[in-house]
C-alpha cells in the first residue's frame, strides 16, 4: 500500500505504507538516535507527533516486552527510510510491522527522509498528516487544518496517570519520591526504585498537597506538549516552592522554570536524539545525553528569577539544567534515564536524591 506524508507548508512525500492502515495528524519531528526505536515509539512525550527516524534501517531487532517505555505506542505516525520486515534478535517477540498494526499506528518508508529532515531543519517542526489508507488529498488537508497543533496544548494531562498509584514500596525506603506524571517513562520509575526509593505516581493535575503528602522529594516527569499550556500545574508548583525539594526532567524542568518565573519558548525543530552533548557547568564534565524536547527554558529570565544554569547544551548553548537553592529546585532538560541513549547521566538520579537530603 502506498503512503503519503503531507506537510502543512504543502510539501509532500510519497512512499510505501507500513504498520497500520490509517491516517493520523501530528507535529512532524525527527530523531537522530540510531538505536532504540521501540523506546521512542512508547515514549509518551511523542504524543501527537509524527516521528522521523534519521537512521537508515528501523525494525531490525523487532520489538520485545522489556524495551517498552510505557504501555502504549504514543507516536501518531512513524517515518523511516527503510523498515525491516524481518528482524533478528534473541529478545524479539514480534516484528515492528505487526506491532505498529496492533497499536493502530501508520508508518511510511521509502521516502527521502534526509530531504525531509533538511526541510524540517530549515522550516521548523510543523503540522503534518501521514496516511497509508488511501484517504484522498482533500480529506488529508481537512484533517491537517483541523488539528490544533502543539503550541498551547496541555497534552501532559491526557497522557499521564489519572489516578495515583504506588510503583514501588520497599520495606525500608531510602526516600519517599512522589513522581508527578505528565507522561513518565518507565525507566525513570525503575531507576528511582533501584535506588531504594518508595515511588508513588500522581496525576499532573492534582494539587501540591496531593504531591507532597508523605514525600521527601517531588519529581516532575517528562511529557508532551507545551509547558505554557499548564498554568494550573505551574500554579500548584509555585504554591509549594521551598517547602519540599523538587526536581524535574524535560517537561518537568520547563514547568519548574515557569514556576520560579522564567519563560519557555519553542525551539525551531527541537532536540531529539541520543548524541546531545551537555556540559555540567560545575564540573566541566561533558555528558552525551538523550534528549527529546521541543520547548526550552529561556536563560535571561531564569537568571533574573535567581536560577543558576547548571548544565548547558553545547550544540546551541541552550539551558540544559538549572538550580534554585532558595526554592530547593534542581532540574535538567535531558533524560538521565536514557532509553534510548547513553547512560552518561545516570549519576543524576543520585544527585537528585542527595538534593533531597537523602
Amino acid at each position: 500500500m502506498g503512503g503519503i506524508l503531507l506537510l502543512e507548508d504543502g510539501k509532500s512525500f510519497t512512499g510505501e505504507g507500513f504498520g497500520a492502515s490509517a491516517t493520523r495528524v501530528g507535529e512532524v519531528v525527527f530523531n537522530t538516535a540510531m538505536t532504540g526505536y521501540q523506546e521512542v515509539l512508547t515514549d509518551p512525550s511523542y504524543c501527537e507527533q509524527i516521528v522521523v527516524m534519521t537512521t537508515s534501517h528501523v525494525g531490525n531487532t523487532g520489538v520485545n516486552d522489556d524495551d517498552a517505555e510505557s504501555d502504549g505506542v504514543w507516536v501518531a505516525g512513524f517515518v523511516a527510510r527503510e523498515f525491516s520486515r524481518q528482524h533478528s534478535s534473541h529478545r524479539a517477540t514480534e516484528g515492528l510491522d505487526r506491532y505498529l498494526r496492533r497499536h493502530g499506528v501508520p508508518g511510511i518508508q521509502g521516502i527521502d527522509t534526509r530531504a525531509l529532515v533538511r526541510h524540517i531543519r530549515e522550516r521548523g517542526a510543523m503540522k503534518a498528516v501521514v496516511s497509508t489508507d488511501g484517504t484522498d488529498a482533500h480529506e488529508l488537508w481537512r484533517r491537517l487544518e483541523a488539528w490544533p497543533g502543539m503550541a498551547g496544548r496541555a497534552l501532559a494531562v491526557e497522557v499521564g496517570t489519572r489516578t495515583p498509584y504506588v510503583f514501588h514500596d520497599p520495606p525500608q525506603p531510602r526516600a519517599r519520591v512522589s513522581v508527578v506524571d505528565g507522561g513518565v517513562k518507565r525507566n525513570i520509575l525503575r531507576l528511582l526504585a533501584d535506588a531504594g526509593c518508595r515511588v508513588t505516581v500522581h496525576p499532573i493535575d492534582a494539587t501540591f498537597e496531593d504531591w507532597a503528602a508523605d514525600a521527601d522529594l517531588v519529581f516532575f516527569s517528562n511529557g508532551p506538549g507545551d509547558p505554557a499550556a499548564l498554568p494550573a500545574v505551574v500554579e500548584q508548583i509555585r504554591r509549594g516552592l521551598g517547602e519540599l525539594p523538587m526536581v524535574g526532567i524535560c517537561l518537568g524542568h520547563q514547568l519548574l522554570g515557569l514556576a520560579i518565573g522564567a519563560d519557555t519558548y519553542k525551539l525551531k525543530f527541537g532536540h531529539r536524539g541520543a548524541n546531545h552533548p551537555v556540559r555540567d557547568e560545575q564540573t566541566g564534565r561533558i555528558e552525551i545525553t538523550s534528549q527529546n524536547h521541543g520547548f526550552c527554558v529561556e536563560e535571561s529570565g531564569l537568571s533574573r528569577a535567581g536560577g543558576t544554569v547548571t548544565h548547558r547544551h553545547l550544540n546551541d548553548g541552550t539551558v540544559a539544567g538549572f538550580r534554585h537553592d532558595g526554592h530547593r529546585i534542581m532540574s535538567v532538560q535531558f533524560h538521565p534515564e536514557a532509553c534510548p541513549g547513553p547512560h552518561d547521566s545516570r549519576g543524576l538520579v543520585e544527585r537528585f536524591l542527595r538534593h533531597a537530603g537523602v
Partner: protein
Amino acid sequence: MPQRTDIETILVIGSGPIVIGQACEFDYSGTQACKALRSLGYRVVLLNSNPATIMTDPEVADATYVEPLSLDFARQVIERERPDALLPTVGGQTGLNLAMELAEAGVLDAHGVELIGARPDAIAVAEDRQRFKERMIEHGLAVPESGTAGSLDEAEALLDVTGLPAIIRPSFTLGGEGGGIAYNRDEFREIVVRGLDLSPVGQVLVEQSVLGWKEFELEVMRDLADNVIVICSIENFDPMGVHTGDSITVAPAQTLTDREYQRLRDMALTVMRAVGVETGGSNVQFAVNPDDGQIHVIEMNPRVSRSSALASKATGFPIAKIAAQLAVGLTLDEIDNDITRRTPACFEPVLDYTVVKIPRWNFEKFPGADRTLDTRMKAVGEVMGLGRTFEEALGKAISSLEGGWPDAGGWSDEVLRERLAIPTPDRLGAVFEALRRGMDSSDIHRLTHIDRWFLHRVADIVAVERQLDGRFLSGLSDEELRRAKRMGLSDAWLARILGTTEESVRSRRREAGIEVVYKRVDTCAAEFQSFTPYLYSSYEDEDEAGELDADRVIILGNGPNRIGQGLEFDYCCCHASYAVRAAGLRSIMVNCNPETVSTDYDTSDKLYFEPITAEHVGAVIARERPRGVVLQFGGQTPLKLSHSIGPILGTSADAIDLCEDRERFNALLASLDIRQPEGAMARSRDEAIAAAARIGFPLLVRPSYVLGGRAMKICYDEADFQAALTEALDASDNHPVLLDRFLEGAIEYDVDAIGDGQDIHVAGIMEHIEEAGVHSGDSACVLPPVDLGHRLARRMVEATVRIGQRLRVRGLMNVQIAVQRDADGGEELFVIEVNPRASRTIPYVSKATGVPLAALATRLCLGETLADVGLPADRVGAPLRPALRSRGGYYFIKAPVFPWGRFAVDDVVLGPEMHSTGEVMGVGRSFGEAYAKALVASSMRLPQGGGVFVSVRDADKEHLADIAGPLYAMGFRLLATAGTWAALQEAGIPAEQVFKVREGRPDIVDHVRNGDVQLMINTPLGRKSVYDEAAMRLAGLRFGVPCITTMRAARAAVSAIRSLRAGELRAVKLQELPPSPA
C-alpha cells in the same frame, strides 16, 4: 583545558612500509596528526621509512627523516632534534612498538621526552593479553577463558581451561600475525610454535573460541578531562573467527537493540578508563552471543587503527586529527566540528546512511596459499560503499572491488556448502549463490553464523534479481528499474541479468530519468548545515552536491589497494588535487578506498566517495561538468576508463592504448628505431605455441592490461611454457597474451619522465639492484644509477624523449629499459615497457630528487609547459643533465617488503610477478650506506658477522669471488654447496661444504635451524626452482635469515654490510638535502 605550552617540539612516528594489516590508513592518520599539531604551533619532527607517503613530504613536518624505524635511528633523531614529546599513537603497531622500545631502553627518560596520547603503562596493559584480561575482570567485564604461555608445554596445559577449538594469539604482533584457530591438537601445536616464534616477547595467548558469536567494534575517544565519546559502532558481517581486517564490516551496527548497544558503550568506556588510555582514539572489540546476548571483551587498541580510519571515513569525524589535538591537552568541547563549524567535537556522530567495507585480497599472487580466513589478516586493501540503505551500500562496495568476485554458478551444491561453512574471500559470493539457488536463509545462517538480518537483506537483493531474470530490458517498467537501482544493482550487474550491455542499461535508465542524486556525509544526519562536501550517490529525491565557484577538475583515485597498485598512486592523486587547487581551480576527488589521504574530506574541494567505474564516474562527470578528468595518477584502474569518460586532461586515451596494444607499440618503437626484446602477441593457444617456437627460450609470458605482473612467468622449457600459458590465458580476460624473449642477466632501469605534450623532461633514472626477470616493483633500485655509463644514460634519455614526444605525453610517463651485455662486451639497450601514466616510483623519485613530480605533472595536464613549471626539456643530442647523475653525492635506494610470512607459500623467490606490498627508502652518502639503511628499514636482519651460506648457479660462479672474498675478509664463515664450494676453492676462498636438502644430514635446512647461518645467498638455477632450494629459502624465512636471490643484490648487500660494520649509518633530514641541480 587550553593546549599545552610546556612542549614545543613533538616527534611523530609513522608506520613504515605498507604491510598486510598496516596500510596507507596510517599515512592518513599520520598526515592528519602532523597537520593538526603544526596548526597549533608545535614544531613537528617526523620519522617514517616509507617514502610513498604524504606525511613524509618535506612540507608536512618541520623535520622529516625517511629512516628505518629502529631504536638506533629513533635515538639519533631524538638526539638531534630534542623533541619534548613523542606521539606514538598514529603510526600503527609499528609506531607504538618503537615508542615502547624507546621508553624501555631509557632513551625517552634520558632526553626528557614525554609520551603523549598513551602512556607506557596503558600501552603495556592493552598489549599484554594477560594483563589486559586481568584488568577487564577487575572491572567486572567478561573475557573469553584464556591464559598466556611462553612454551608449548604451558600452552598445552591451558587447553584444559579453553578446550578446542582454541584461538592462539601471539603477543605484540600486528594484524594477528602468527595466530590462528586450532580445531585439533596437531594444529594447536603447529600454531603455538609459530606464534611463540613470531611474538617479539615469545609469548602466546591461548583463548577459548567464541566462533560464530557476533562481532562488534566501538571507536572511542577520550580527553584529558575524562570525557569519553563513541565515534562509531561497527558490526562485522562475518562473525567471530575471521580477523576484522578480513571481515566485511558495516556501520553503524545494525542488529542491536538500544539496551544492548548501550551495554557495549558502557563497557567500551570502562575499558578505556580501565586500561588508562588518557587521550586519543582507541578501538574496543566485542563478541556477543547471538543466543543470549552474553558479551565478551576481545581486545582493544590504544591507538589510531585501521578501524578508526574506517570509522573516520564512515562518519566524517577526523579521529586522528582530534586525537592529536587531545594529546596536547585540548578537550573535546574546545575543538570545533569542521563539518558543521557551529557545533563542538564532543558529540557522537550519527549516520543517516549505511556503510559497508569489503576487504580486497590478493591470493591469486600466492598459489598454494591457504585461502581460509582466520585470525590472521590476509587482505591487502579494502573498499567502502556508502548508501542510504545497506543494500545500496553493499552494491556499491561490490562495484568498487574490481573483480575478486567468484564465479559461483559452476559450483556443485556440495562445494557451495563448503564455501559457506569455511570462510574464504568467496563467502559473500557464496551467500548470493545459495540464495539464488533457493537455499533457506536459516540453513545459510547455520553454516555461516552470519546474522539473519544481513542474510535477509541479501535475499531481498536476490529477489529483485529473480524478478528481472530472463526478461528484456525493454520490457522493464521504469518503476522496476528504479527499484533495482535502489537495491544497489549496478548497470553492469543489471546488464548481466538482462543479457544486454551496460551501456544499454544506462541509456534506458537515462531516458527514464532514473539518475542518482548526491547526499552529504555530515556527522549529524542533516540536523545541522554542513560545510564539507563529502558526497555519496543514492537513488533519492534531493541533491546536495552544491555548486563550486570556479572551473572544476576531477581526479580519479586508485580504488582498493592491491599488490602493484597501492599507496604510491594515492600519493600522486593527492598531489594532483593540491596542484589543481593551487592553480585556482576546484578539485574533485573520486575514490572508494577508505584507507587513503585522497578520501580525507579536506584534500579536495569535493569528495565523491564512489566506485571507480564508468557508471559512477560518468554520473559525477554529468553532475559536475568539469573542465576535464585527470586519470593518469590512479594506476591502472582509472586508465581502464579512458575510452568511456572524458574529456581527459593529460596524455590522450589513444596514446594510452598505443602503449597497451602490442602491435601498435611494436610499430611505434620500430619507427623510432628503438629496440625491444623480440616478442609476439597471441590470441589463442595455437598462436602462442607458434610464436614461442619462433622466439625460443628463455621466454617471458604475460597477459596484457594487467598491473603488477599478474600471471607473468619466465619459461625455460616447454613444460614451464604450457603451464604459464594456461594461467596467462585465464588472467587475460579476452585480451591477448604477450610473449617476449627474456633478457637473461640484463640490468633493468626505470625512467620516470614528464611531458607537456611537446617536450619531455627526464626526472630520474633508477637502476634495479636485482637483474632483469624480477618485477620492477619487487626489485630494489638506486637513484642515481651506479653501474650506468654516460653514453648509455644519454641513450636512455634520448629514447625516453623520442617516445614521449611521439606519444605527445602530457603529464607523467615511465619507461622500463633493460641493458644486456653481449659476449664481446657490447651493451644493448632494449625498451621493455612504456606507461604513459604515473608510475609506482613517482613518490620515491620526487623525494630523491626534491622535485614534486605529481604536482608539476598536474600543471602540465592543465595546460602549462615545462618552461612554465621551471623544468628543462631534454633533447636528443643534448648533453646529459648533471641532475640525472647526482644529487650532492647522496644515494637513494628503494627496497620492497614482502608478505611471505602471512601465507603458507611454496617458495619465496623473486620473479616477474610482483609480490611486495610496500617499500622503504634508504638515504646515504654512499651506495652501501643507503642500501644498508634500506635493508634495515625493510626489517631484513643483515648480519655483521656469523655464517653465510652461498649456493649459486654456474653462470654466476665467475663473479662469486667478488662477493665471497669480501665476506671472508670481514670474518664471515662461509658455507657452500658442492659446486659453489668447488668454485670457492678454486678462487682460494676458504669455505665449509654443506649438504643440500636430501643429499644427507645435517643439510642446509638443519644449519639454518641450528642458527649457523645468518645470511643466505642463493641464486636459483636458471629454470624453475627445485624443491630443495625452496625448502631452504622457506627455512630462512621461517627463522628470519635474509635470503638474497640475485648476484647484483648480493654485491650490494656486501657493501651494505661493510657500511653497517663501519657504523656509518647516519640519520639524514630531508629538509637538509642539497637542492636538485637543474
